[in-house]
């Protein structure tokens, strides 16, 4: 391959929760951040993506099964938290306060990975009924973050990494580890890519020590869950 081709600027379709960290890992790529489900649908309709980084493994796996991308690998993990505006208008101090009447709960739509995780964690905690308080199903996690940090919604479920990007605007309420769904991020090279080598290089960078260090610094979890010491 001509060396210049290796410099081709690649287009990375990445989950909205990677908005801050991916440009830190590779500033030269062109990014399209949105809900992973939206990106997957766009790729299925022929969008010119070289790499797909999803906030779950199911979506890239579906693309892989359809022959639209390479077999995805897990590159990081995340946890879910409940956030409330700093002013905390509804007085929410634990997830159980979401059962109060009239709480304006903002979540992502069920098709968005974080929306699906939100429903799982509530189900795990036998709190599925609080979904009746949902005031909006957002298109990606950053919309939830925006509506809560603006103080328009009383509470919302986001990744712990999103909550860190709005310090001073939201208060984070941690969710118990036993209730956490398995939040694994999958990445793959899109089959129709004209820059396969550069796309593979991007994935290698994300998986590299330096890439993983950037993810950890942003609050993401190591891609493999550390085994408990014997």
């Amino acid at each position, binding site marked *: 391959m001509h060396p210049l081709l290796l410099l081709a600027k690649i287009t990375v379709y990445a989950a909205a929760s990677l908005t801050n960290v991916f440009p830190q890992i590779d500033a030269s790529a062109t990014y399209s951040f949105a*809900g992973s489900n*939206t990106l997957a*649908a766009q790729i299925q309709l022929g969008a010119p993506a070289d790499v797909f980084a999803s906030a779950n493994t199911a979506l890239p796996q579906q693309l892989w099964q359809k022959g639209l991308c390479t077999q995805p690998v897990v590159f990081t993990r995340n946890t879910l938290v409940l956030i409330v505006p700093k002013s905390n208008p509804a007085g929410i101090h634990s997830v159980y306060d979401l059962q109060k009447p009239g709480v304006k709960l903002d979540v992502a739509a069920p098709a968005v990975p974080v929306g699906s995780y939100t429903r799982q964690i509530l189900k795990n905690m036998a709190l599925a009924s609080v979904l009746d308080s949902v*005031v909006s*199903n*957002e298109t990606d996690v950053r919309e939830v973050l925006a*509506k809560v940090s603006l103080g328009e919604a009383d509470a919302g479920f986001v990744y712990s990494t999103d909550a860190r990007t709005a310090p001073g605007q939201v208060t984070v309420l941690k969710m118990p580890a036993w209730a956490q769904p398995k939040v694994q991020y999958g990445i793959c090279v899109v089959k129709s890519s004209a820059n396969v080598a550069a796309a593979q290089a991007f994935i290698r960078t994300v998986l590299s020590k330096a890439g993983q260090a950037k993810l950890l610094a942003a609050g993401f979890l190591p891609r493999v869950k550390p085994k408990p010491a014997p």
Partner: protein
Amino acid sequence: MIRRAVVWGAALAALAFLALPIAAIFARLSFQHLASSVVTDALGVSVKTTFVAQALVLLAGTPTAWVLARHRFRGRSLVVTLVELPIVLPPAVAGIGLLAAYGRMGLLHTSLPFTQAAVVVAVAFVSGPLYVRQAIAAFEGVDETLVAASRTLGAGPVKTFFHVVLPLARSGLAAGEALAFARGLGEFGATIMFAGSLQGVTQTLPLAVYQEFDVNFHTALALGGLLVFVSAALLVTLKWLASSSTSAFRFALSSSS
């Protein structure tokens, strides 16, 4: 001869370019998806919010346009520009503005966001100016002497407005309302930012198209087809209204002479 072929070729290409996406929606549409609750709920929300918003636009916009068309005062052009501004604003800016003004943490501290009323507000904000702008032009086009004649013949200002001005301006008003209605029906950005998206409450047809796009493409197509159908029906109705208003005007003229 060649020039003619080029002109016809360009026209045909342009028509095909415009018609193809609409034809493609119907080519791939299966009507069974219209029965999905996402579709029926979105239709309900859209119909309800559009009619309330457009009623408000007509009720508030008509006197506004009348005042701006009939009175010359200092700063009038500034006021007209302000009224027109939402037309050129990107919808996302409209959404931010509405949140900053009417959000819970906004200037007025209302609890509008996430309610169906918020959809109405967003739709009225982005679509109203289209009507007002056209209505100003329509009122300005009304012959002063006819208004004066009506007044000298003893009709009060209200009677003159409803029996002389309104029939004369009707086709211009209908055209403006058609634009406002269509813009309101398709409103997306300001709605999703200000009102959010919740099925059966704030999820209008365009928001449902976006949500279903990656969930069930066929439902998205069905919603798209529905929007095309509603918009086309609206367009035809308003064209008919506009043309019939001219004959009503002629009738009014001949019967009063």
